[in-house]
């Protein structure tokens, strides 16, 4: 029943993109996202497209993995495309119907926004497809480190995320068990109106919640007995290596950012 929930979409591999430092990947994605929305000029959109194609090609992740997450996104992309198509009233009129008039500006704007969203989704899924959740948390913790100076509990945040990731499969397993136990008592999760089905899940969620609290307490005792005292004075087992490939990736994205700024504001 819950089999179709994919936890962490990571696809194992050894491609150049897989081996990039998660910090590099995160910064690159951030730059890409910001400057993609600055880009209007065909040149900078072209560069963005090139980068996406390059990353996509290097990552070597089968297309089906992208498509799996795309169905919902596709609706949004089509919707925004249509919205821009009908709402923009610029440029020469292409054709007129009794209901709407389509302008050339509308088509261009629609395509632009559509392409932007598509590239964004591709790059974002590329990150989760090629990086293990553990590496991602490590990368985030490391990037958030400067914020520690202003009192942000960076270690605690990263640690919380990593514990949550560790327990998702365990909790799913438990949810399955409870669902089966409730089904054995006559609960019905697959019939009736949506409201009825949602209500049928209450007897699953309550024991799951209680169990999670018990687990949390056990875990706290186990952690304490293993000497956990927060982030102070802690050493790290996993460390991240910044390699030449990471610098290259960063340089490429910086060049793209400059192109985007230049074509948008200076041309």
């Amino acid at each position, binding site marked *: 029943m819950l089999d179709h929930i994919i936890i962490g979409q990571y696809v194992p591999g050894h491609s150049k993109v897989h081996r990039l430092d998660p910090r590099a990947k995160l910064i690159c994605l951030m730059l890409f996202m910001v400057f993609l929305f600055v880009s209007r000029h065909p040149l900078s959109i072209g560069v963005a497209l090139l980068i996406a194609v390059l990353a996509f090609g290097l990552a070597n992740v089968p297309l089906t993995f992208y498509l799996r997450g795309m169905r919902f996104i596709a609706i949004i992309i089509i919707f925004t495309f249509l919205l821009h198509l009908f709402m923009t009233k610029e440029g020469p009129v292409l054709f007129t119907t009794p209901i709407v008039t389509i302008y050339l500006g509308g088509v261009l704007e629609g395509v632009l926004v559509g392409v932007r969203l598509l590239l964004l989704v591709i790059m974002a899924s590329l990150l989760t497809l090629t990086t293990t959740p553990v590496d991602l948390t490590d990368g985030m913790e490391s990037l958030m480190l400067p914020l520690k100076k202003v009192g942000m509990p960076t270690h605690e945040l990263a640690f919380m995320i*990593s514990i949550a990731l*560790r327990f998702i*499969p365990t909790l799913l397993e438990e949810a399955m068990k409870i669902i089966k136990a409730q089904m054995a008592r006559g609960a019905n999760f697959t019939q009736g109106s949506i409201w009825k089905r949602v209500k049928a899940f209450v007897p699953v969620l309550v024991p799951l919640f209680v169990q999670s609290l018990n687990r949390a307490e056990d*875990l706290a005792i*186990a952690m304490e*007995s293993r*000497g956990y005292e927060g982030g102070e004075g*802690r*050493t790290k*087992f996993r460390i991240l290596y910044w390699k030449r490939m990471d610098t290259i990736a960063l340089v490429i994205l910086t060049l793209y950012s400059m192109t985007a700024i230049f074509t948008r504001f200076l041309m």
Partner: protein
Amino acid sequence: MNKDIVRIHNLSFQYRPNEPYVLTDINLTIKEREWITIVGHNGSGKSSLAKFLNALFIPDEDGEVYIYGLNTKERQNQGKVRKLVAMVFQNPDNQLVAPTVEDDVAFGLENTGVPREEMIERVKESIKIMGLEGFEKQEPHRLSGGQKQRVAIAGVIAMKPKVVVLDEATSMLDPVGRKEVMEYIRRVHNDVNMTVIMITHDLNEALFSDRIIVMKEGKILKDAPPIEVLRDEELLKKSLLKPTFEFEVQSKLKEKGINLFEISPQITNQKELVDALCTWKQKM
């Protein structure tokens, strides 16, 4: 013999005032390198006693717990005590913290600030002792119950404690997992020279120990070598413990007038039982 490493004096404990005592007047010493099994029925206080051993519980009133001479009442000793006495708990799912096996083994070392080079060494070593090579990158939820408990034990011995306390560490496992974990606990005791304190309600697991401590309603009923405890039917009945299969066969036969004890004074496993039965048959 070896020196005393755990000394408990007049320990009494209740969770809240006006509630019945969980432990009453416990006196106990444990020597280095011993294998102790604490057995008792549910609510006998055995798990509470265990939590005093690594300063998770602190004695109030006049009771005292000394670990390697350190009084757990003093705050500055508590960190040291937890380094000396490590604990493995019942539920394998609730004590693995990290997303992969090697990260989890390293968790305790990270907490105590061990330098990374040494950490890698020690993680590797512990993984080898617990026979988990090849599972380093595995996620905990893909392991069997027995394997998870082995990971938990590996994480504990990586910290090089002197004493390992196993608080019902096998009670949630299937028989195969139990056997597997017991095998590795023996290894930890024999090869790594650790003092093992096992808490269980299964007498089968107590056979390997040097001493069995039988508890009931917060009191120690008996503190003796396994054979003596297992043979004491009166005691087992009183403490609501199920005798091991071999001893049950012996006592049932005794009721029928067949005394296997005369043939072989030491029957602890099935092979010895079968041998004794064969000898008896030949004598007929």
